[in-house]
């Protein structure tokens, strides 16, 4: 989220066999299992790259319970899965949120994203983990009223910050990168963080401190306690320092950068009889209460469910068998092993 959003390509409409919401490890492996059955996939993910929680939350943390791989990091697992599914040519729609679902008259599903992409397929697979990664909202009363007008969780155009009194909160790479990028543009830029230490890249921190020393920006060990303004236009904030002393600080743009958190999002409106934000499924097909919609990985629930990556892999394999019957009702599905089937090996590009 610390990069600028590129100009979006024109909205796309595509028909495919299976739409997968979520490009985490389970969504990726679903491409493999579906691909062995010649089913083509489109994946939608709100993040700008594959891996879901594995790459967003713990890219460098070791995972020890992937069968046959004693130790792998979240990033390595994602890279290997991406490599494993390469033969199947899945289409990825990154940086897009699955926002609306409709059933067409011919029985297929039409999924729209917030970027205007429209996907149509007989099968929808929800592999969305805990939901969508969205920016963390600081718990400041009334902040919703300012969002999109003078409080922003991402900067889409640097020019929008020109000559404004910009306040940035946070101590990670996004906070520091935007402090450095916006310093030349803003009328005045102030960075606040709860401590005089940062988790951001050292060279960014060094440069920020230089700008402070040169008097070009301000840095305070403080946190934002209240927002003041009217009609969504911020005029000032109340800051509180480490000694709890509060003061008023003029600002007409506030950029909080506290990373991402997971919210279920529009999937909650898909009519899937959610139970505590989870999608109940059967354990033969991992199909939801709606035929043609499957849920695999952390987002589903059934008796005995364990939220493990390996469970999601199993669920993907069984889902694929059931998805085949929906996508190819007149074809017979023959069970084959990758070790012995020359037709599977051809699909994998190894025969």
């Amino acid at each position, binding site marked *: 989220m610390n990069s600028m959003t590129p100009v979006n390509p024109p909205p796309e409409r595509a028909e495919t066999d299976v739409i997968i919401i979520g490009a985490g490890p389970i969504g990726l492996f679903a491409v493999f299992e579906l691909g062995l059955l010649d089913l083509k996939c489109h994946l939608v993910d709100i993040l700008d790259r594959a891996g879901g929680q594995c790459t967003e*939350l713990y890219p460098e943390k070791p995972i020890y319970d992937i069968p046959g791989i004693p130790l792998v990091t979240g990033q390595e697992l994602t890279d290997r899965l991406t490599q494993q599914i390469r033969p199947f040519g899945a289409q990825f729609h990154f940086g897009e949120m699955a926002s609306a679902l409709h059933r067409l008259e011919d029985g297929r599903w039409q999924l729209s994203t917030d970027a205007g992409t429209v996907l149509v397929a007989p099968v929808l697979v929800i592999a969305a983990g805990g939901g969508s990664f969205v920016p963390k909202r600081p718990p400041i009363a009334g902040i919703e009223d300012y969002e999109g007008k003078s409080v922003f969780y991402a900067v889409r155009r640097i020019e929008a910050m020109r000559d404004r009194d910009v306040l940035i909160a946070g101590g*990670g790479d996004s906070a520091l990168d935007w402090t450095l990028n916006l310093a030349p543009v803003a009328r005045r830029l102030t960075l606040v963080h709860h401590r005089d230490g940062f*988790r951001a890249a050292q060279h960014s921190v060094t440069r920020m401190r230089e700008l402070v020393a040169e008097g070009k920006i301000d840095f305070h060990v403080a946190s934002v306690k209240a927002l003041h303004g009217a009609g969504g236009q911020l005029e000032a904030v109340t800051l509180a320092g480490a000694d709890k002393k509060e003061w008023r600080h003029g600002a007409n743009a506030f950029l909080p950068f506290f990373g991402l958190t997971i919210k279920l999002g529009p999937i909650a409106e898909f009519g899937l009889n959610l139970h505590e934000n989870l999608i109940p499924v059967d354990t033969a097909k991992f199909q939801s209460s709606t035929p043609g919609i499957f849920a695999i990985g952390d987002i589903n629930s059934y008796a005995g469910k364990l939220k493990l990556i390996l469970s999601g892999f199993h669920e993907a394999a069984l889902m694929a068998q059931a998805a085949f019957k929906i996508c190819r009702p007149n074809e017979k599905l023959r069970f084959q092993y990758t070790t012995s089937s020359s037709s599977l090996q051809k699909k994998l590009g190894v025969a």
Partner: protein
Amino acid sequence: MKIIAIDRKGVEHTVEGTIGWTVMEALRDAGLPVAAECGGACACATCHVYVDEEWFGKLSPPSPEELDMLDMAVAVESNSRLSCQIRCDPALEGIKVTIAPE
């Protein structure tokens, strides 16, 4: 061991913590609303709690990793900790924590 946990509505709960396990696990297993999105890997800051002053000083100091992760928490105070990094220990019997805002 006993853990006193105050939820976001200000309601006090007494939760049983297992020695050697983390306070986050005790809160989560008791059904209290700590998201713990990363499952205790010190990678998400969604198990953020405020530790009562009486207990705060008894904790082993936060690792650089935890301090870094607290940078991604909102509403950090001087007594903020990640509950996945507090291990239940007889010396912490009765520790009082308040679940930080989401």
